[in-house]
């Protein structure tokens, strides 16, 4: 490992860690001190989860990084999410829902020769 690579890994690791740690500590302090968060901030924080998870879903379906969109691949992913939703609605179980997605996607992937 060269010193440049080591320094870069150290700085990147530290910056990533601090971006996760500092907001967590600051918000925990406010919560522990029972300082009331404004209704706007409460609404904002309540919406962070659904918003980012929805973006993760989009991100995991559409190709990122300027890659060309292949409609068939996107269609396969969307179709393979249907058994996931179906099994989750029926069972409420994460593991079996994810497994249904893997089986569905694997089957469609093989069928399409994608």
């Amino acid at each position, binding site marked *: 490992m060269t010193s440049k690579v080591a320094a870069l890994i*150290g700085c990147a690791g530290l910056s990533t860690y601090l971006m996760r740690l500092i907001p*967590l500590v600051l*918000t925990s302090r406010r919560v522990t001190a029972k300082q009331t968060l404004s209704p706007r901030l409460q609404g904002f924080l309540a919406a962070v989860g*659904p*918003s980012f*998870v929805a973006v993760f879903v989009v991100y995991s379906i559409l190709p990122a990084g300027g890659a060309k969109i292949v409609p068939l691949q996107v269609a396969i992913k969307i179709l393979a999410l249907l058994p996931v939703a179906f099994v989750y609605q029926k069972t409420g179980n994460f593991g079996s829902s994810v497994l249904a*997605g*893997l089986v569905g996607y694997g089957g469609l992937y093989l069928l399409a020769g994608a």
Partner: protein
Amino acid sequence: MTSEVQAVQKGAWSLWREGLQGAQPIMIGYFPVAVMFGISTRTAGLGVLDALAMSLFIFAGASQFALVGMLASGVSFPGALIATVGLNLRHLFYGPAIAPMLGLTSWKQALPVAHGLTDEVFASALALLPRHSITERTALLLGLETGAYASWVLGTLVGALCFQAAAELTPALVPVLSFSLPSLFLVILLPLLKGRGAASALVAAVVATALLLSGFSTAALLAGGISGSVLGAFWGRDDD
């Protein structure tokens, strides 16, 4: 050691194990991607130690791949660092969203929790933590993070050590196994789709899709997440 303390410790271990079990979908999704990361690090001319250090100390998939690409193409130190920080800006929002669920009483408790707060762990925590009392959640989250971290580090090591054999095997496995992550995100999203959550998710998804299709893939993640959250701030206080 009193029996009361032992009981508390046993509870924490069993919660940690429960968190670890909850991490299984993440582990299935992470492992092949981490193997690919290990391979890409070696093919970029970096060593096993470089790959391992990145996964141990950074633990952020997208920025690790970007960093390897930048190192391979000779991007300057400040440029690579700024790009990494930019890619990880979204992490600023995870702590504030999750802190009210954890009730951490000191900054020391936040130290181990913060390192494992990746996209997938954050999303899984949103679904897993509310099912437990506030005193149980930190141990659960740590179990979730341990599973994800172990899978990522181990996958990197396998990819970096056996990169020639792994390169032949993983391209066939990556697309199928990595589909566990979209599946996981969907099952986490479904119960959040009520009132404010549904409106925020819809706006976030539309903004992210529009930006992704326009080629702004890095901005898409952050802009989508923020736009949905801002809508949530102005939604009112009725229906959570």
